[in-house]
């Protein structure tokens, strides 16, 4: 079961990677980054549910089971927060860019290269 979820997560991550590298429209690139974030979250939740917590592997390592069991879900919450902040800022940048430069294709935005 853990393997299944991890394979799903890996497929989603690679789809996102392909989208980031191959799309020319900036919003499409941001959407692909979101798919990659979600792939990571699936892996975190899968590990949180299906791996043996350290507290149970070593008797005496602690009795607060929820601390070890829910570590993955806590990290996933923070990933969602950071992704939301990133999308809000990224889309604001895109709208400002579309107003100023009149283009939203990454291959037209090579100012930093020169």
């Amino acid at each position: 079961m853990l393997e299944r979820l991890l394979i799903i997560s890996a497929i989603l991550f690679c789809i996102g990677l392909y989208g980031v590298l191959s799309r020319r429209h900036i919003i499409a690139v941001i959407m692909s980054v979101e798919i990659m974030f979600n792939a990571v979250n699936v892996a975190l939740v899968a590990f949180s549910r299906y791996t043996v917590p350290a507290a149970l592997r070593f008797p005496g390592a602690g009795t607060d089971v929820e601390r070890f069991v829910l570590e993955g879900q806590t990290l996933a919450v923070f990933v969602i927060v950071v992704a939301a902040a990133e999308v809000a800022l990224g889309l604001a940048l895109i709208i400002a860019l579309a107003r100023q430069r009149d283009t939203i294709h990454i291959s037209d935005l090579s100012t930093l290269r020169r």
Partner: protein
Amino acid sequence: MAFDNLFSEIVFWALAVVTIGSAALVVHLRSIFRAALMLVVSFLGIAGIFAMVNAEFLAVVQVLVYGGGIAVLVIFAVMMTRDVDTGNRSTAVQPVALMMGIALLGALAYSIVQAEWAVLPDSLPGPIATVFVETPTQLGRLLLSDYVLAFEVAGVLLLAAVIGALSLVRERNDA
């Protein structure tokens, strides 16, 4: 939830196929607006997967934040930039990107299958099962005790992002 019956197996595979299929359509469709709609479908599929692996709270958060907030933001940005849109073509490195994606997937799948995971059984032992019964309570307790610093920093990050986004899209009539 244990995967003990055929019905949950079917639901799980349906969710997996819908999620991966719509994610593939997001990077494949030429129309950026349809790609954004497919992204919403993919987010909701992932919320379903969360609900099936004892992460009900995260499933609700996923629907609210991704299916609601981020989806609206993306569609809004697509509408705002529609007049400068000239199609969703691929870059010149598309074949290389495809090869890199397949290579990475192969490497990841190989290591996932080869690794020996210390896996919990589908029917959880007592103390862990009680944690998963009341996930939101335990998550809230953890966020305000062990992870309180990260929690506060996340709040400041969201505030900074909102203020930054507002100042970026403001119409400048004084400059």
